[in-house]
C-alpha cells in the first residue's frame, strides 16, 4: 500500500501528535498522583519523618505513588529535583530553605510539574507552592498544661536555631503557659545545631539548674536532661511519650496529611498549585494536634485545655504567631 497523505491529513496528524502529551497527562491524572520527594536530611529526622509518614500513608491509601531520595545536600539538590521532574513526577516535594533560588529556577524550567516546597519565601508562578511548619497551636495547648503543672513557675525551652518556624513555636508555648500561669518566668537556649542531642541535653540541664521544671523540647535531647533531673518535658513534632515515660507528658504533633490531600486535590482538578499551603498545618484542618497522657495532668487543666482546643478548631480563637527570637 502506498501512503499518500493529503495536506489535511498531515495537519490533523501533526496536531494530534502535538496534543499527545497533554492527552496522556490527562489520562494519567485519573490514577494516583505521582509524587517524588527530595529530603535534605535522612527521613528518620524528626521533621522529615512527619512528611515521610504522611506520604507513605497517602500512598497506602492509593492517593499518590511515592518516590523519594534523602540526605540530599544543597549542592546536589536542584539535580535531584530535575531528575524526578524528568522521570515524570507530577509533584516534586522538597525543602527549599537552603536552595530557595535554585529550587525556583528548576520550577520555571518544568512548568508542567507541580512543586511543593518548605520555604521561607512565598509561592511563585502557577507551579511552585510553599508551606510552613505549624504545630504552634498544639504547642500553645501543651503550654497551658505546663502552666498548671510547674511548681517553680520557671519554664525552659531548647531550640536548634532561631529561625521563624522555631521562634513562633517556642513563643506559642509561652503564650499558652501565660494563660494558666500569668507570672511565669521563661528561659531559652539555642544549641546551634539540628542534631546534637548531647548538647541539647546539657542545655536542658543548665535550665533546670536555673529553676526550670517544665521544658519545651524543640530538639531531641531536651527530654533526656529532664529525665535525668526528674522534671517534665514537652515534645515537638513527634510523640516522645513512649521514649520518655513519666517525663514527657505532652507533645505538639504535626500532621502533614491535610497538606498532601490539599495539593493532590488541586493537581487532580487541574488548579494551579502556586500558592501557600501553610494553612493546612493549622488545627482547623487537622494539621496539628496535642497528645498528652491524662494521668500526668491535673484534671481541671485538661478541661481548660480541651475548651480552648474546641475554640481553636472552631476558629473562635487564634493562637498568636510571633516570629521574634525568644530571649
Amino acid at each position, binding site marked *: 500500500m502506498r501512503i499518500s497523505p493529503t495536506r489535511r491529513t498531515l495537519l490533523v496528524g501533526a496536531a494530534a501528535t502535538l496534543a499527545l502529551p497533554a492527552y496522556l497527562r490527562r489520562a494519567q491524572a485519573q490514577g494516583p498522583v505521582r509524587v517524588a520527594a527530595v529530603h535534605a536530611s*535522612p527521613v*528518620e*529526622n524528626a521533621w522529615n*519523618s512527619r512528611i515521610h*509518614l504522611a506520604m507513605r500513608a497517602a500512598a497506602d491509601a492509593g492517593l499518590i505513588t511515592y518516590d523519594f531520595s534523602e*540526605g540530599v545536600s544543597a549542592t546536589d539538590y536542584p539535580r535531584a529535583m530535575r531528575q524526578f521532574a524528568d522521570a515524570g513526577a507530577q509533584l516534586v516535594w522538597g525543602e527549599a530553605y537552603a536552595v530557595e533560588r535554585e529550587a525556583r529556577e528548576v520550577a520555571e524550567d518544568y512548568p508542567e510539574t507541580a512543586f511543593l516546597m518548605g520555604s521561607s519565601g512565598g509561592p511563585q508562578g502557577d507551579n511552585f507552592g510553599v508551606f510552613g511548619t505549624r504545630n504552634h497551636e498544639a504547642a500553645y495547648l501543651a503550654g497551658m498544661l505546663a502552666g498548671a503543672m510547674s511548681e517553680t513557675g520557671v519554664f*525552659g525551652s531548647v531550640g536548634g536555631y*532561631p529561625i521563624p518556624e522555631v521562634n513562633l513555636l517556642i513563643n506559642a508555648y509561652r503564650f499558652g503557659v501565660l494563660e494558666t500561669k500569668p507570672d511565669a518566668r521563661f*528561659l*531559652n*537556649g*539555642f*544549641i*546551634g*545545631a*539540628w*542534631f*546534637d*542531642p*548531647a*548538647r541539647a*541535653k*546539657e*542545655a536542658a*540541664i*543548665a*535550665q533546670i*539548674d*536555673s529553676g*526550670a521544671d517544665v521544658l519545651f523540647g524543640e530538639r*531531641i*535531647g531536651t527530654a*533526656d536532661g529532664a529525665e535525668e533531673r526528674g522534671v517534665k518535658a514537652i515534645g515537638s513534632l*513527634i*510523640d*516522645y511519650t513512649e*521514649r520518655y515515660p513519666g517525663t514527657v507528658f505532652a507533645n505538639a504533633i504535626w500532621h502533614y496529611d491535610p497538606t498532601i490531600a490539599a495539593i493532590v486535590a488541586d493537581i487532580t482538578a487541574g488548579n494551579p498549585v502556586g500558592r501557600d499551603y501553610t494553612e493546612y498545618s493549622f488545627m482547623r484542618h487537622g494539621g496539628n494536634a496535642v497528645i498528652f497522657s491524662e494521668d500526668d495532668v491535673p484534671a481541671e487543666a485538661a478541661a481548660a485545655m480541651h475548651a480552648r482546643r474546641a475554640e481553636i478548631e472552631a476558629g473562635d480563637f487564634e493562637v498568636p504567631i510571633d516570629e521574634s*527570637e525568644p*530571649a
Partner: protein
Amino acid sequence: MTEALELLTTASLWASVLRIATPLIFGVLGALICERAGVLNLGIEGIMTMGAMVGWLTVYLGADLWTGLAMAAVAGAALGLLHALLTVPLGLSQHVSGLGITLFGSALAYYLYRLIVEVGQLPPTIARFPRLHIPVLSDLPFIGPVLFQQAAPTYLALAAVVGLAWVLARTPLGLALRMTGENPHAVEAQGLNPIALRIGAVMAGSALMALGGAFLTTVAFNSFFPEMVQGRGWICIALVVFASWRPGKALLGALLFAFFDAYQLRLQTVIDGVPYQLFLMAPYLLSILALVLVARRAEVPAALMAPWRRGER
C-alpha cells in the same frame, strides 16, 4: 552579672564540664598519638561517627556496654589502618586521605545503620552507662557530684591521659614513637621499623577517637544520629596544637573548651539581650585565642606530615 559569677560556684556547671570534655579528651589523645608519630589524621570526624554508630549498634544487638566500647575501638582502628596504609607505606597526602576517611567513615556509619536497624519515628534506644555512685566519695559536697558521679567512660578517658603521658615519657615504646615523629631515620638506625610504628600509632589513635564517638551514643545519649558528632573531631585537631602535643595540656585544653561550652549554655539562661550566637561562638573564639597565645611556643613534631621512605635521604 553577679548571677553569671555565681554560676561558677555551682557543682552542676563543673560536672557538666567533665561530661562535655570526655569525648574531646578521647579525640584529642587519639589525634595526639597519630601526630606524635608523624601522621596527621583528619579522618577523626568520620572515625568518631563510626565509633558512635558501632558502639551503639553493638549494645543494641545485645552485647554489654563495655563490649560496645571495645567494638567501637576496633572499628576506629580499622579506619585508622586504612588511613595509615594510604599515608605511611604509600606516602600519599595525609590531608587528602584524612578528609577521605572522614567522608567515608560518616557515610559508611550511616549506611550500615540504615541497613541493620529498623528506624521508625524515633531511633531505637539502648540502656546507657549509668552515673557511678561511689560510697562516701560521691556524697562529698561539691567534689562529689563533679568528680565522683560521672559515668565510667569518663574515668577511662582520664586514665587514658595518665596512661598515654606515662607511655610517651617513660617507656621505650614511647621514645620510639616520639622519635618516629621527629626523625624516622634515627628510628631505623636503632633497628626499629618506622613504618610499623606509624601504622600502629595511627591505629591506636584512631581507636581512641572512636571511643570519643561512642561516648556520645552510650553515655551522653542513647541513640545514633548520623550528624551527631557535630564537628567535635575538628575541635580535637585544634586542641592538639593548643596542647603542644602533650597529653597533660591536651586534657587541659579539652576541659577549657568544655568549660566555655558549659558556661555559655548557662549564660544563655541568665543574661538577656545578648544574641545567642555570641554565646555559641564563645568556646570557639576563646579556643582560637588560647591557640594563638599557646601555639607560638608549640614544639611541632619535626617529621609531622613528612612521609618516610626506606633508603631515602
